[in-house]
């Protein structure tokens, strides 16, 4: 089973057309429901370990990933289901991975935080904060050295900004002119500490300090995310070096399933829910006469089927056999 990256029925336009907006709406709803149902699967004990849900942030993944071409690469943080689905990873195999099953994208060896599908350039969720930023620079360096025209989208949270590797990576990316889009999903909290309490300046100020173009965008507006990330990707593809996008967003659920959310008020969550990216795009399309109630219902039904199918697929997939335990520790000539 090899997935194909979503996308590209045509060259990227600066403004998405109606078909593309309808597709954005579908994808955001798919991620929303996939995550909600995944949360339910966690409470049923089907999904174990750490689980970080992406609800609220869907516009970031959908808007940013839609700017990429099939040859491009993605590395992201551990809240990675949304990016995986937006890149075109098979939801069945994502859910199977969350269930820890053999048909999961990582064969049940990775789990929620470690999704990989190299066939679509999705090179991982990374569960050590900021660890993948230098990797993205390495991918960019390889693109330059091999003269391959791929861009690497590196997604991370505002919690990464305090890590040394953030600074090392930005510096190296500019020094070596690597085609990397640094995409910061600023959901205001690194676990339970607000970013104002953990950062002495603004995120984009740091990027600018390394001589990197940087922009901050409304991360709950999928069109805005798409528009600004597309500029970044085109900048990289033109050989002009890295580019930084900060998307201001909000996660509706706790940091992980274990989070009692003592650090924020319910009012704050409600405030952001009123700016929900799905609701806003839906309203916009309805106002423009591009979507009606029946059209929305069709999207909802289509999404429900995909998500329910993914759960059935995951449930039916076997556990990886115990005799495969020692597979893939090191790669040796002649390995299957």
């Amino acid at each position, binding site marked *: 089973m090899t997935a194909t990256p979503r996308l590209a029925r045509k060259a990227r336009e600066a403004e998405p057309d109606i078909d593309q907006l309808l597709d954005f709406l579908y994808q955001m709803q798919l991620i929303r429901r996939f995550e909600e149902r995944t949360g339910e699967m966690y409470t049923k004990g089907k999904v174990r370990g750490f689980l970080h849900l992406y609800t609220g942030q869907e516009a970031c993944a959908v808007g940013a990933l839609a700017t990429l071409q099939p040859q491009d690469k993605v590395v992201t943080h551990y809240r990675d289901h949304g990016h995986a689905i937006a890149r075109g990873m098979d939801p069945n195999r994502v859910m199977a991975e969350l269930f820890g099953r053999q048909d999961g994208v990582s064969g049940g060896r990775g789990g929620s935080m470690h999704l990989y599908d190299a066939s679509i350039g999705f090179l991982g969720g*990374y569960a050590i904060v900021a660890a993948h930023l*230098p990797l993205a620079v390495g991918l960019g*360096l390889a693109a330059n050295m091999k003269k391959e025209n791929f861009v690497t989208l590196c997604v991370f949270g505002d919690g990464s900004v305090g890590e040394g590797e953030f600074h090392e990576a930005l510096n190296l990316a500019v020094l070596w002119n690597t085609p990397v889009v640094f995409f910061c999903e600023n959901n205001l909290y690194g676990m339970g500490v607000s970013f104002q309490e953990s950062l002495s300046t603004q995120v984009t100020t740091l990027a600018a300090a390394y001589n990197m173009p940087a922009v901050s965008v409304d991360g709950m507006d999928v069109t805005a995310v798409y528009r600004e990330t597309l500029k970044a990707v085109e900048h990289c593809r033109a050989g002009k070096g890295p580019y930084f996008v900060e998307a201001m967003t909000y996660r509706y659920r706790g940091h992980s399933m274990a989070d009692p959310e003592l650090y924020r008020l319910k009012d704050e969550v409600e405030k952001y829910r009123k700016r929900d990216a799905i609701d806003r795009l839906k309203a916009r399309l309805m106002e423009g006469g591009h979507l009606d109630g029946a059209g929305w219902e069709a999207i909802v039904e289509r999404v429900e089927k995909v998500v329910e199918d993914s759960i059935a697929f995951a449930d039916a997939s076997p556990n990886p056999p115990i005799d495969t335990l020692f597979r893939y520790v090191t790669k040796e000539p002649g390995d299957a």
Partner: protein
Amino acid sequence: MPEMRMRDALREALREEMLRDETVFLMGEDIGAYGGSYAVTKGLLEEFGEERVKDTPIAESGIVGVGIGAAMAGLRPMVELMTINFSFLALDQIVNSAAKLYHMSNGQINVPMVVRMASGGGSQLAATHSHSLEGLYAHFPGLKVVCPSSPADAKGLLKRAFRDDNTVIFIEHTANYGLKGDVPDDPDFLIEFGQANVLREGSDVTLVGYSGSVHQATRAAVMLQEQEGISAEVIDLRTLRPLDIDTVIRSVQKTNRAVIVEDDWKFGGFAGELSAQIMERAFDWLDAPVARVCGKDVPMPYNRNLEFAALPSEEDVVEAVLAMF
């Protein structure tokens, strides 16, 4: 075969691999214009250019991470971290990314990278600059750990490292850089990993070492023969992961005694692992408990006499052997 020092043999290996495989490139701290802090990469910038010999900022975690990314995309980077002491700053990248990506991705992504670093005490560099922590890296499944003791081994093992599809931690003892020896100039000269080298045959006791400690073991074997009439077999492990335990076990079954010599601290070190494996597999052949001659359990002092006392010496090895008879 030409005679050369270990640093020159290492340079020959790098040069030959860069000529053989255009995906091989080098990056690290002061490897270019400066020529490498141990002069291993001297002249390579001039020969191969800035694209393939990259001076980097002092950012160990960052540059190892960049190496991992480049390796994921099909290149074969060598990252030089100057010394093992600085590698701790890159430990997360080595342990959590380089060693695990192949497994976590279910075999989709591998990281063919060589990370070189110098190790060892004895130069009065004090506690932060005198580590011998080869065993630390050997702890992690997914890594290969190589520690050569001679110029020929250094060349054959380093060339082999570039043909591996995994991350190879290649650790060079600073005391060995100036060692001279005959080195094959065949560009296909490779030494396989996991093949220990029996440097000296003997019948009464097995001395096991690697990297720098091989030389203490060898000098001790000469002293034992000349002064005590004891015949010591000396084994150089060459690689700690994969570990050629079979050669060690065969030797112990012959000599019935084993002494492990290691610069690293005894407590929790690799010598403990070796000792346990010998006990597990050759318990019935042992005439004495396995002995460990290791670094003393202190941060390395600067003073010459104190440093000397903290490191294992050939006299310590002789003493440990005599206690077995």
